[in-house]
């Protein structure tokens, strides 16, 4: 009978879905306690977190739920009490975040490097720039003259914030930068990798973290791009850890958040970060307060703090 057939079909469909649900729940049984970490796409996509987090999870018998979004979004999640701890790279916003009472404390963890990436032949000669500000001046002058194109993340990410801070050294505020003509200043709103792909297609300059650039190089996706300027301390990309204020949000896993922050800046945590290598080089340079590199592999890496603006030395990659 048709009706029976229909019923059977419907039951089979429901059973399949319920089966999937039960299967899923069974997989999720016996959860140890969890820590919700909001972080930026760069720490996650570079593979650093997959390298260091299992060590902490093992030691503390816990699971870390990583939510990888932009720094701006990560702080918004912290503000609303939706995560326990932040690992972000947007210093000015972080300081305000803690000052406003959303974050409990802020500790420097590590930095990586931003680089200016552009067409391999570097037509406007940023390689000869005296500093980062000067390189941006070249881009601006050539851009307005119609000889260069720059692609901005334009998405409130840590990279975008860094870019704005460099424009600020030339006297342009955020509104003025946003009003740069589209003829040479492209506001993409895309993730770093996508912006690099765009720069490759458009023969454009952009500001990138070096990890994402090397990743694109390793995939052979950006054959016409090169790092045209790097090494200035103004291009350091500082990451900090901020436990969400537990007085404001009593439900957060405060104990574990503090343990995690403490571990990141400990000798063990810092050494572990320093030992992470990808594309044949070290990508993240630990610089917690009082940390002294303890392995030979770190010889040559200069420890800096935000107040100290010494020039970096060459990277220690093997």
């Amino acid at each position, binding site marked *: 009978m048709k009706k029976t057939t229909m019923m*059977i079909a419907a039951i*089979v469909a429901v059973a399949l879905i319920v089966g*999937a649900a039960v299967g899923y729940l069974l997989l999720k049984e016996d959860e140890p306690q969890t820590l919700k970490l909001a972080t930026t796409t760069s720490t996650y996509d570079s593979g650093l977190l997959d390298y260091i987090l299992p060590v902490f999870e093992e030691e503390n018998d816990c699971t870390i739920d990583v939510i990888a979004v932009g720094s701006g979004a990560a702080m918004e999640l912290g503000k609303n009490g939706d995560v326990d701890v932040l690992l972000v790279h947007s210093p000015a916003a972080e300081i305000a975040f803690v000052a406003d009472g959303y974050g409990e404390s802020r500790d420097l963890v590590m930095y990586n490097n931003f680089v200016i990436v552009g067409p391999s032949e570097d037509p406007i000669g940023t390689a000869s720039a005296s500093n980062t500000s000067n390189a941006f001046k070249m881009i601006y002058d050539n851009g307005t003259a119609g000889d260069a194109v720059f692609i901005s993340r334009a998405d409130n990410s840590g990279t975008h914030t860094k870019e704005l801070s460099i424009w600020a050294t030339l006297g342009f505020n955020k509104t003025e930068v946003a009003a740069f003509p589209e003829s040479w200043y492209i506001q993409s709103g895309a993730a770093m990798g996508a912006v690099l792909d765009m720069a490759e297609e458009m023969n454009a300059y952009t500001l990138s973290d070096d990890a994402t650039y090397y990743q694109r190089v390793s995939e052979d996706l950006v054959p016409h791009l090169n790092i045209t300027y790097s090494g200035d301390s103004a291009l350091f990309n500082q990451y900090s850890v901020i436990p969400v204020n537990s007085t404001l949000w009593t439900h957060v896993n405060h104990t574990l958040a503090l343990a995690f922050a403490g571990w990141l800046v400990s000798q063990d945590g810092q050494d572990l970060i320093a030992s992470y290598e990808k594309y044949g080089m070290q990508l993240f340079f630990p610089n917690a307060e009082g940390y002294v590199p303890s392995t030979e592999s770190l010889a040559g890496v200069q420890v800096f703090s935000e107040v100290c603006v010494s020039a970096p030395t060459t990277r220690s990659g093997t």
Partner: protein
Amino acid sequence: MVGTAAELIEVTVLSLYVSGMATILGSAIGIPLGALIGLKEFGGKGAIKTITYTLYGFPPVLSGLFIYFIFSRAGPLGDLGILFTPTAMILAETLLVIPLVTGITITSVVEVDKAIKDTVKALGATPKQSVLTVMREAWVGLVMACMVGFGRVIAEVGAAYLVGGNIDGRTRVLTTSIMLETRMGNFEWAIALGIVLLTVALVVFFFMRLLQEREML
């Protein structure tokens, strides 16, 4: 990163679970709602239809934001703690399914109603019997509504990413994996996952089509 077979299965199962539940919930709401709007005469019906069809274009990220604001710790239902869980994802996806199912149901029942109304009346059916007959005759359209709803959510990434968080082993589904792999430059992996998604959809739609044609035994 979806590296092992176990992870791939987990991600696929979760995709099916979230999309399936959202389709069931969305249809459970949308089909009665669509039948009501389609078969009952009332004022402002045209406006309600227009609004329903407009919501076909409801942006998934907006649906995600809506659910985020409700279930964020700072929101009205924050104490439930369901943000970044599959439940939150199901709710956001359900919001996307409802207008589609409602709209297609309206269209299907109205067409059937037009064709058989007089016959049914002539045979002396009670209003309840006549509604049931219309629904039975509209079967093809109703299953179509569910298929379109499922198709929308299995392929959706914006809401799933926002309220799920793309957490490894917890809220990562096929679409958010594809997005992650693309962002990481693993284009081949992204394409492979896309093929997995389409294969899963193929199986689901195969069964739904059998259901639609009442061929299933």
